[in-house]
């Protein structure tokens, strides 16, 4: 702990204020995670990481920087990690998932900005998150308006590069995205001082495909009615994947998947499948330490078996074709894979609805909860078509909206409780 304080001070953090966060986090981790029964043993890795989330990984990153590596902070699953890894760079997620950072964000952003953006800006400007201090450069993207404007504000305080993500998915858009990735790779070469070669890029593509496959194995196990892992634990695994070294992440996810597969064989689940309803969550992403919804659902007689969101299936579904041998081919293959991601920033976005229906079936769910963060008008607006499609498919759905505050927890509990009672009726 004393080492951490030294590190945080050297990073120029507001250690005093950061202490407030350090005080509540262990209780939250205890309440949400450690209180669960019969958890997979392999979760010990993520328990360790989350218990010292501002200590272990930041220290590794600083060590890597001392050895000349550069750290790229990202906010969206559209930013292609492959390019950064190929230049021996390191990627770290930077999304803020706690109310703790919101007030600092509100100092410079309108109140009616989504809490994810407010928390991300607040974590930087309030100097209360080591990852936001460590990153050598932030990579933003032109997805939603709130983020675009927030990057302009962040850009005054930190080196900021913004990728131009298309808003449609026609062939010309995919071609544009390929060019954008190629342009980004020049920037990455400049920041890292390392050249990106087809060999290096091929290796990076492979590393990240392996991570996707390992995560997919864990999710595959969640499809089983045995329910070998809680939604909370799976969400934590996914959230930490954004911060971790991809090779270690792959190893840990595979280790977890091994255990889950064994559990399925032994019929060793974390809940009673006969009395517990299976829920798919869709909507806005859940950045660490946002476990609010999962926690309420899983203490109300249901289990979350899948997340159709960027902290969920969108992070690992679809592989990059590994057959490219020239940079040109490889960038195109990367572009194609990323453009399969169905984010509400795109129009039209019917693919997301198809995904939700498909996942609801694959994961054998009893109901869907569609939840957006307050002031995210993109996902809020998509609720209606999502609801329509689910109604047509005869899959019950509950719409919710929330933010990072705890004040609506009881109201959410009533709605979710009523939804589960409805599924049981």
């Amino acid at each position, binding site marked *: 702990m004393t080492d951490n304080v030294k590190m945080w001070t050297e990073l120029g953090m507001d250690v005093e204020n950061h202490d407030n966060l350090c005080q509540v986090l262990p209780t939250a981790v205890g309440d949400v995670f450690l209180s669960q029964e019969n958890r997979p043993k392999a979760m010990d890795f993520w328990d360790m990481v989350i218990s010292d989330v501002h200590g272990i990984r930041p220290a590794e990153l600083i060590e890597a920087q001392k050895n000349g590596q550069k750290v790229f902070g990202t906010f969206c699953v559209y930013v292609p990690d492959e390019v950064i890894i190929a230049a021996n760079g390191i990627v770290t997620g930077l999304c803020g998932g706690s109310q703790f950072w919101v007030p600092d964000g509100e100092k410079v952003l309108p109140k009616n900005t989504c809490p994810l953006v407010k928390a991300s800006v607040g974590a930087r400007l309030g100097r209360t998150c080591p990852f936001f201090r460590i990153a050598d450069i932030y990579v933003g993207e032109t997805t939603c308006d709130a983020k675009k404007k927030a990057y302009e504000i962040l850009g005054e305080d930190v080196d900021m590069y913004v990728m131009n993500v298309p808003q449609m998915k026609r062939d010309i858009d995919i071609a544009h995205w390929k060019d954008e990735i190629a342009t980004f790779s020049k920037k990455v070469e400049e920041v890292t001082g390392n050249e990106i070669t087809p060999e290096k890029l091929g290796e990076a593509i492979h590393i990240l495909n392996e991570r996707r496959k390992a995560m997919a194995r864990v999710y595959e196990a969640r499809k089983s009615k045995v329910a070998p892992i809680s939604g909370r634990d799976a969400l934590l695994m996914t959230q930490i994947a954004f911060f971790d070294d991809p090779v270690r992440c792959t190893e840990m996810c595979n280790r977890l998947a091994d255990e889950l597969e064994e559990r399925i064989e032994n019929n060793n689940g974390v809940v009673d499948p006969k009395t517990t309803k299976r829920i798919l969550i869709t909507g806005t992403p859940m950045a660490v330490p946002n476990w609010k919804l999962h926690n309420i659902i899983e203490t109300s007689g249901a289990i979350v078996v899948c997340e159709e969101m960027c902290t969920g299936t969108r992070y690992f579904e679809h592989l990059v074709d590994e057959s490219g041998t020239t940079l040109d081919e490889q960038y195109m293959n990367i572009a194609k894979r990323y453009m399969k991601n169905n984010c509400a920033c795109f129009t039209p976005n019917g693919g997301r609805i198809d995904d939700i229906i498909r996942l609801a079936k694959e994961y054998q769910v009893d109901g869907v909860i569609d939840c957006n963060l307050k002031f995210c008008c993109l996902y809020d607006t998509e609720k209606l078509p999502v609801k329509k499609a689910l109604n047509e498919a005869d899959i019950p759905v509950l*719409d919710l909206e929330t933010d990072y505050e705890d004040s*609506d927890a*009881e*109201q959410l509990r*009533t709605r979710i*409780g*009523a939804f589960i*009672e*409805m599924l049981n*009726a």
Partner: protein
Amino acid sequence: MRHCVGIDIGSTCTKLAVLDEDKEIKEVFLRPTGWSSKETAELIKDQLKDKGIIAENSKIVSTGYGRASVAYADKAVTEITCHAKGASYLHGAKNLTVIDIGGQDTKIIQIKDGVVQDFMMNDKCSAGTGRFLEVMANSLTLDISELCELAKQGSNVSISSMCTVFAESEVISLMGKGESKENIAHGIIDSIINRVAGQAQRFNLDESEVALTGGLYQFDYIREKLSSVLKKDVSVSKYGHYAGAIGAALVAHDIL
């Protein structure tokens, strides 16, 4: 005699219903919830004991926002499920849309073939809830029934603020301008009815009866207004205020 007891602890008012084994309503009563729903729950327990209702083999189910405070309940069930059950029982309809205007929230529940199909709740803001009417009536120094009486004779004023706090100052400034109480009252009722009806219209009401429950069921003017905006005959029951408690008692009956 085995009893089925339903206790609905709402934000302002606690409702209680006792059914017998044949699902006949034996008794209903209400009391203010007060500051502490735990205390209210204890007071009710004493009351039930005095009346000889709590017996070994009776079942008690709690609901409402204070449902977790009833330590002696056999089960806690959300108000959505209980309102749906209670209203179906009271109105005897298989397909029913329940509009419950409560003290601090408004619920719309769609019931199909006797089970909850969909629901929505407004509990984030007091607009469109009983609280809105109460505050508005207070600012005119009226109670809600007087407000309804006056509203019948008024016309032509609309309250544009959704937010209770802003609406209150709007009312005060209308009074300052010399607008008649009748017209202001008319505008106030229109405002809440439009708000609630707007929420209800998100559901398909074509093949369903519509019922109004909660404390406002007793004001005929509100029922009429709601019927005319929804273009649907809205029905009420004399036990409308107790729909949640009766529903909880019915759940108690299920677990007898």
